[in-house]
C-alpha cells in the first residue's frame, strides 16, 4: 500500500474553481479538502465539490465508450473501444460534410465546464457555425452585452479591494459560486461592514441580512434598474465628469429614463414600493465604492441584453466602473485567449452566414452560439435546413432547455447523435454513441483562463478512472481523426495556451496560479474598448444593425399583465429560480450524500395560497402551465409573494432505470416557453425562468 499523496488542483463542480487538495492513495482519490493557500477560496469549498469522490467512483458511472444497438429509446447499449467510437463518429461526420456541408453538424455543450476552448477549436476546424451552448442565457450573454457597452465584463472587486456597498441582484453566491466568484469573498466583505442591498423575489439568507430587501416580481429586473437610474438622475447623484467625458448617448438615455420610467410606473411593474427603490438607489449611489453582483435570472429573460447594459450604466454613472472596490474590469494574466486558441477566425463570412438564427440574434452570433429552438426547428421542420448530426458534451437539454418536450422530440429525431457525459442521462439515452468523460479530478487544464477576474489556476490530474478521457482529449483525438490541427498530447496544447506567460504547463502546475497585473480606471487613459471609446449607453453597434440603440424594459412575455387571458386559467407567476446548494442545474441527483440533503424537488408556495388549494406542507402538488404539467413537493414559505410559486429546476431521476429516467416528472422546463417572440431579440436568450401556472394537490400521494 502506497502512502497518501496530496495533489493540489482546482474544483469544477460548479463555477467558482476553489482550490482543492486531493488525497490520493494507490491511484484512487480517497478524500478532497479545501486548499488554504488558494488565492480566492482560502480552503473553503461547497457541498458539490466535496462530494466529488461519490461522483467519480459512482457505481452507475459509465467508464468506456458505448454504441446503441437497439432502437433509439431501447436503452440497449454495447461496449466498444475508443478506436471504434472515434472512427464511427469521424466517418459519420465526414459523410455529412461531404453530402451536405459542415454546418449540418451541431456541436453543443451545457454550462461551462472549462473545455469551451477545446470544443470551439473542434467545431471551428470542423467548419460549423452551429454551436449550441448554455451561453445564450448564461454568462456568455452578459459578456456579449458587456462587450458592446464597455468592452469587458465588470466583475465585483472582492479580490484586490473591497466594496462598501454590495447589491446582490438575483443571485446566491454562497450556494452557486458563479463565474469569477466564490461565496467566501462576498461574506468577508459583508462581515467587514459592507452595506447590503438584496434584489430577490424570495426572502433568502441575503434578504435576512440586507439593509434593504427589494422583493421584486420575477422577471422585472430591467424595470428596477431603470428605477435606480431615475432616482440617481433626479437627485443628481451621478458622477458628472464620467457622464460628460466617458459616456456616449447620455442625453438620449436620460430622456428615456425620465420619460418612460417614472418611479410610480416602476413600482407598478416590479411590485416594489417606490420609496424603497429610492432608498436603495441612494444607498448604492452615495456609498463608495459600491458594486453590483448580478445573477442569471436577469439573463434568462427577454430583457437579457438590456438589463446588463442598464446595470453597467449604473456602475458607470456612479463612478464605480473599473474603480477599486467597485465593478472592476480586471486584467487577465498573459495566457492565449480562448478566441485565438479556438480559431474563431477559421470560419469564413460565407460559413458564418449559415449560422442558424445568426441574422436574427446578432449579439448571440457575435459570441458564436445559437438559440436552442433554432436547432430544434432545424431538426424537426428542416428550417432553413436540416441538421443531420450532433455532438453534445456535458449537457442535458431535455431537462435544462425551455419547452423541454420540443428539445426531446428534436434530439429523438436527429440522424446521428454523440453524447459525452459521466452518466446515462435522459439526453444520453437518445444518442447513438456515448463517450465517457473524466471528472475534474481526471483533468489537466489551465482553469479559469477564459474568466474575467484576473486569475488562471492549475488544475492537475489526480487519477484516471476506467477508460474515461478528459473532454479536452476527446475533442483533440476526434479532431485529429478528422484532419484537424491539434497536438500530440493535451499537455502540449496547454503549453500553447500558456505560451504568452512564458510558462509550460509543468511549470504552471508548480506555480499553482497566475494573476494579471491590475490597473484601475483604464478608460481615463485609453477609453473603453467600444467603437466610440466611451461607455455606450447608446449602442452604436445596435444602431448600425437597425435595432433600438437604447436599452428598455419589455414586459415578461407571459404574465398577468401581458397575457391576462392566460392568467385566468393560470393565475400564478411560476419562477423556476429556487436553487439548491447541493445540485448544479441537472447534475448530481445520483450522488448519495447530496440526495440525502435534498431528496425531492421542492416548490415553494405561500401559506395563504396553499390554503386556497388545500395544499399542505410536504405534499406533492401538480404545477401546470399552458405547455404541460409536472409535480414537485410543496414547501410552504411566507417569504415569497402569495401570487408567486417558486420551484427547483434540473430534476430527473437517475434511480428510475427506464431510458426516460423520469425526465418529464418534475422537470420545470416542461412548463416554460421557447417561442422566438419570448426570447431576447438581440441575444436569443430563452426565458426558462418565468411563466404562468396553476397549482393543485396530487391525489393519493
Amino acid at each position, binding site marked *: 500500500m502506497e502512502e497518501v499523496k496530496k495533489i493540489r488542483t482546482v474544483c469544477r463542480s460548479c463555477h467558482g474553481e476553489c482550490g482543492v487538495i486531493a488525497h490520493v492513495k494507490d491511484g484512487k482519490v480517497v478524500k478532497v479538502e479545501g486548499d488554504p493557500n488558494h488565492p480566492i477560496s482560502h*480552503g473553503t469549498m461547497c457541498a458539490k465539490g466535496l462530494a466529488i469522490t461519490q461522483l467519480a467512483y459512482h457505481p452507475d458511472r459509465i467508464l468506456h465508450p458505448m454504441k446503441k444497438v437497439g432502437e433509439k429509446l431501447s436503452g440497449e447499449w454495447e461496449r466498444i473501444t475508443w478506436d471504434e467510437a472515434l472512427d464511427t463518429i469521424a466517418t459519420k461526420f465526414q459523410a455529412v460534410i461531404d453530402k451536405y456541408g459542415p454546418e449540418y453538424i451541431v456541436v453543443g455543450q451545457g454550462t461551462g465546464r472549462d473545455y469551451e476552448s477545446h470544443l470551439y477549436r473542434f467545431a471551428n476546424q470542423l467548419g460549423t457555425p452551429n454551436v449550441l451552448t448554455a451561453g445564450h442565457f448564461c454568462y456568455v450573454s452578459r459578456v456579449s452585452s458587456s462587450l458592446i457597452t464597455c468592452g469587458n465584463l465588470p466583475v465585483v472587486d472582492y479580490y484586490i479591494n473591497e466594496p462598501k456597498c454590495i447589491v446582490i441582484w438575483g443571485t446566491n453566491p454562497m450556494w452557486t459560486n458563479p463565474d469569477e466568484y466564490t461565496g467566501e469573498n462576498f461574506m468577508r466583505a459583508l462581515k467587514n461592514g459592507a452595506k447590503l442591498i438584496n434584489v430577490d423575489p424570495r426572502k433568502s439568507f441575503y434578504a435576512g441580512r440586507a439593509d434593504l430587501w427589494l422583493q421584486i416580481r420575477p422577471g422585472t429586473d430591467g424595470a428596477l434598474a431603470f428605477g435606480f437610474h431615475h432616482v440617481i438622475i433626479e437627485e443628481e447623484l451621478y458622477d458628472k465628469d464620467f457622464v460628460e467625458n466617458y459616456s456616449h448617448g447620455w442625453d438620449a438615455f436620460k430622456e428615456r429614463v425620465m420619460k418612460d420610467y417614472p418611479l410610480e410606473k416602476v413600482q407598478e411593474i416590479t411590485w416594489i414600493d417606490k420609496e424603497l427603490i429610492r432608498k436603495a438607489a441612494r444607498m448604492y449611489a452615495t456609498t463608495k465604492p459600491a458594486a453590483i453582483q448580478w445573477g442569471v435570472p436577469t439573463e434568462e429573460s427577454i430583457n437579457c441584453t438590456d438589463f446588463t447594459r442598464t446595470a453597467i450604466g449604473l456602475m458607470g454613472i456612479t463612478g464605480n466602473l473599473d474603480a477599486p472596490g467597485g465593478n472592476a474590469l480586471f486584467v487577465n494574466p498573459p495566457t492565449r485567449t480562448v478566441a485565438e486558441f479556438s480559431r474563431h477566425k477559421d470560419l469564413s463570412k460565407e460559413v458564418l452566414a449559415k449560422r442558424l438564427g445568426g441574422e436574427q440574434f446578432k449579439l448571440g452570433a457575435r459570441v458564436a452560439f445559437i438559440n436552442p429552438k433554432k436547432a430544434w426547428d432545424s431538426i424537426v421542420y428542416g428550417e432553413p435546413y436540416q441538421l443531420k448530426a450532433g455532438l453534445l458534451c456535458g449537457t442535458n437539454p431535455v431537462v435544462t432547455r425551455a419547452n423541454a418536450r420540443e428539445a426531446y422530440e428534436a434530439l429523438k429525431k436527429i440522424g446521428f447523435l454523440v453524447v459525452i457525459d459521466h452518466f446515462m442521462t435522459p439526453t444520453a439515452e437518445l444518442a447513438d454513441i456515448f463517450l465517457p468523460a473524466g471528472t475534474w479530478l481526471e483533468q489537466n487544464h489551465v482553469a479559469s483562463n477564459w474568466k474575467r477576474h484576473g486569475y488562471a489556476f492549475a488544475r492537475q490530474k489526480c487519477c484516471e478512472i476506467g477508460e474515461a478521457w478528459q473532454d479536452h482529449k476527446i475533442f483533440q483525438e476526434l479532431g485529429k481523426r478528422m484532419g484537424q490541427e491539434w497536438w500530440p498530447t493535451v499537455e502540449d496544447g496547454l503549453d500553447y495556451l500558456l505560451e504568452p506567460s512564458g510558462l509550460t504547463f509543468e511549470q504552471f502546475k508548480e506555480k499553482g496560479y497566475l494573476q494579471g497585473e491590475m490597473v484601475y480606471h483604464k478608460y481615463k487613459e485609453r477609453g473603453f474598448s467600444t467603437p466610440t471609446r466611451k461607455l455606450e449607453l447608446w449602442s452604436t453597434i445596435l444602431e448600425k444593425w437597425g435595432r433600438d440603440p437604447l436599452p428598455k424594459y419589455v414586459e415578461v412575455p407571459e404574465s398577468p399583465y401581458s397575457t391576462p387571458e392566460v392568467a385566468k386559467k393560470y393565475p400564478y407567476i411560476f419562477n423556476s429560480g429556487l436553487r439548491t446548494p447541493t445540485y448544479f442545474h441537472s447534475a448530481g441527483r445520483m450522488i448519495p450524500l447530496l440526495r440525502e440533503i435534498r431528496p425531492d424537488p421542492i416548490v415553494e408556495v405561500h401559506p395563504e395560497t396553499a390554503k386556497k388549494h388545500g395544499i399542505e406542507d410536504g405534499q406533492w402538488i401538480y404545477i401546470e402551465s399552458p405547455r404541460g404539467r409536472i409535480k414537485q413537493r410543496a414547501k410552504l414559505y411566507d417569504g415569497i409573494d402569495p401570487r408567486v410559486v417558486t420551484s427547483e429546476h434540473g430534476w430527473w431521476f437517475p434511480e428510475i432505470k427506464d431510458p426516460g429516467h423520469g425526465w418529464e416528472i418534475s422537470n420545470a422546463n416542461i412548463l416554460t416557453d421557447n417561442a422566438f417572440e419570448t426570447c431576447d431579440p438581440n441575444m436569443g436568450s430563452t426565458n426558462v425562468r418565468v411563466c404562468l401556472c396553476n397549482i393543485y394537490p396530487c391525489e393519493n400521494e
Partner: protein
Amino acid sequence: MEEISLHFFEEDCNGCHACEIACKQEHGLGVGPQLIRVIEKSPLFIPVYCHHCEDPPCGDACPVEAITRDERGIVLINEELCTGCKACVEACPYGAMQYDEDRELAVKCDLCYERLEMGEEPACSLVCPAHCIAWGDPKDFSN
C-alpha cells in the same frame, strides 16, 4: 491544558451544507448519521452539532460508560464499548448524537481530533465559506 469546543455563529450560516459533506468524508460516513447538520428555516439556518458539553448528558445516559470527555474537553465515544442502545441519542439536548445503522453503533463529532493533532483545523470549519464555524477555547466564542 486549554479546553476546546465547537461553535457556530448562527447568523452567518447560509445553509450551504458544505460542513456536512466535509464531516462525512472525514469520518468515512455514508447516508444516515450526520455528525453535523443544518436545518433550513429560510431565511435562517439552524446548525445542529455537538457542543462538547462540560457535563455531557450523553455520557450520563450511557449505561456502559462508553462516552467520556477528555482532558481537552472533547466528548468522545469509545466504539468498542458502545452497545448501540441509543440512550445517548435520546439524551442529547441538541440532537447531535447519531446512530450508524450499518455498524449498529452510536457515532458523534470527535472535533476531528486526528486533524487537530496534525495541526489542522476540523474539516467542517476549514471548508465553511461563511467562516461561521469556530473551534477552540469556548471563552473566545463570545468575541
